[in-house]
């Protein structure tokens, strides 16, 4: 018997591991709560039956009870409360308290660390977020999946504060569904004390002199973006030949790399473990504040630009409140505080005078406008993603 229990636990362990993989796209949180409760009770019952031989009907009744209770207990939050789903470290300390005070409501928020999490949550349909902050390409997908609500522009008086250069982008023409919150670029950070000379090109990330001091993001599209731009192609190409050339280039680079790192490349720059790190301007800017020897380069060949945007899900319970909040964060003063706290680039032109001077002068956060000329948004490339994925697998498998 002990043997069987052990085998059983073992199988469950294995399944648990597999479920880890399967959950992002498949599981709705609520379903898991019900299933979890079911698991606990049934598990206890199985044990109990092994130990004391509970009659079968008790087990059946309990199972049924759990299922009924589980189905009933699906939570429905209906108070007047704004539910925010946002990237971590994307709010200033007083952003929410100020809003709560002003409108006499509660704001709660969850954080995520990937756009795919938003997609999964909204697709599952069981959550009641009022406001989400997806990146550009994800806005495109959410619109296509019919998961976003159209915005009532009349309620957004502060929309005028947004620089028109950051509006009307291809992922949401006319900003029917989204307004930009922060924007950023993917260039590379470097150590001025270790990497001398004029740094203005991706080419330095291919320099064998810096073998084992270079990191790239652990992200397929950003890697290809760097390679495609240095080849003079678009980072959204669907041409197999161009993808192949980019792949060759990345393969050539791999032996020079210390690691693929999306999480703490700025810390590696600070500790001196790495001297050249492909990364997002926000993190590099934070590192620049700590160490003046760190620089940020927007490569002249071009690079990725991205927008994180405020959107209201189609089934948001508190649309009015969500619109109020959207308008609120576009106020110049609020937007300035966000920049001062988060170190990201803002699309809000009116707030700039109120931003701390050292941030305003940081070229990673406020790059010269002409340097943005060659930046490019990442789009969903549709079927071509398979070609990218195959090439990326080849790079990673070596």
């Amino acid at each position, binding site marked *: 018997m002990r043997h069987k229990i052990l085998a059983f636990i073992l199988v*469950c362990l*294995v399944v648990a591991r597999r479920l880890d993989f399967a959950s992002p796209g*498949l599981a709705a949180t609520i379903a898991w709560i019900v299933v979890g409760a079911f698991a606990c009770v049934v598990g206890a019952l199985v044990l109990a039956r092994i130990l004391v031989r509970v009659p079968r009907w008790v087990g059946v009744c309990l199972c049924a009870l759990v299922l009924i209770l589980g189905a009933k207990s699906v939570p429905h939050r209906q108070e007047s409360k704004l539910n925010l789903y946002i990237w971590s470290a994307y709010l200033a300390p007083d952003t929410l308290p100020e809003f709560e005070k002003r409108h006499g409501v509660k704001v709660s928020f969850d954080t995520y660390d990937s756009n*795919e999490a938003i*997609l999964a949550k909204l697709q599952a349909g069981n959550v009641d977020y009022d406001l989400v902050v997806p990146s550009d390409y994800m806005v495109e997908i959410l619109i296509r999946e019919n998961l976003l609500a159209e915005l009532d522009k009349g309620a957004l008086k502060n929309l005028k504060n947004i620089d028109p250069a950051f509006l009307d982008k291809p992922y949401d023409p006319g900003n029917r569904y989204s307004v930009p919150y922060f924007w950023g670029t993917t260039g590379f950070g470097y150590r001025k004390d270790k990497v001398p000379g004029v740094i203005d090109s991706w080419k330095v990330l291919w320099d064998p002199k810096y073998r084992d001091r270079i990191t790239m993001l652990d992200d397929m599209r950003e890697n290809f973006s760097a390679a495609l731009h240095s080849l003079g192609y678009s980072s959204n190409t669907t041409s197999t030949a161009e993808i192949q050339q980019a792949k060759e280039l990345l393969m050539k680079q791999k032996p020079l790399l210390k*690691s693929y790192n999306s999480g703490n490349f700025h810390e590696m720059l600070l500790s*001196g473990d790495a001297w050249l790190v492909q990364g997002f301007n926000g993190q590099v800017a934070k590192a620049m504040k700590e160490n003046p020897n760190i620089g940020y380069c927007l490569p002249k060949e071009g690079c990725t630009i991205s927008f994180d945007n405020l959107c209201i899900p189609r089934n948001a319970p508190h649309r009015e409140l969500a619109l109020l909040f959207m308008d609120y964060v576009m106020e110049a003063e609020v937007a300035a505080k966000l920049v001062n706290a988060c170190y990201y680039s803002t699309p809000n032109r009116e707030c700039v005078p109120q931003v701390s001077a050292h941030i305003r002068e940081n070229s990673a956060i406020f790059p010269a406008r002409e340097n943005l000329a060659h930046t490019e948004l990442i789009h*969903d490339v549709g079927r071509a993603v398979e070609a990218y994925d195959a090439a990326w697998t080849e790079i*990673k498998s070596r």
Partner: protein
Amino acid sequence: MSQRHSRSSWKAALLDPALGWLLAFFLAPIAVMLVISFARRGTYGGIEWVFGVGNYVRALAPDYLTIYVRTVLMAAATTLICLVMAYPAAYYIALKADPKWRSFYLLLAVVPFWTSFLIRTYAWILLLRTEGLINTMLVGMGLVSEPLKLLYCDSAVLMGLVYGELPFMILPLYSALSRLDTGLLEAAEDLGASPAQAFWTVTVPLTLPGIIVGTVFVFIPSLGAFVTPDLLGGSKSIMIGNRVQDLFASVRDQPFGAAISFLLTLIVLTMLVGAMRVKGRTDSLHGSTI
């Protein structure tokens, strides 16, 4: 399924909580995964219900075979190193240590689990990185002229896996060794076996069930590892777990991810059945179970 089950009516299937459990947590997810694995990625990351075996054909491409081979080799090496390291530890705790201290030693083996695996892995990064503690010390003491490459290589991944899985090997081995009748070792010595011969001809065969369970406990999670190769390997030489994670999270090719997951599950299940067979046989020999 046993004959008893196949012959009994659908009622019995509904009535048996154990079967319900198995259905809910094992068969249902696998069935869902299996169905999805034959579907196609929608143009924008959804699932298109057009069925075919394309995903499985892709999953057998040379690049993937390279990754499978590396994954299996990595998991096998992890298992072997864990076995070699855990056996003496378990042997000491079970047979040599003062019984008073036995539970304390076992506790020590489990204590790392009180901290999140991610945090422990980051701690390793701090130790191993170029400007980290170990390299700073080595360079400072003049033992090496320039920092060693300790992090972001296969050996770092291996070390991380061994570190993470070692307790899963120690515990079943301890369980097997603590039930070893030491009288048998005396009998072997009495019959002319040197301590080394007694170890190989008596201790090892009699603790085989523990070795099998430990191997399963270590090999299977190692096979699916993705955090360690990501953080300690710098994601440079990936294992199959990283690929599955990528396919679900960033490429959003759920059908293909499901196909690879299913292949992996199949391999693991085959192994489990094999291991259970061998273990069942040895158990019946020894009249013992773990």
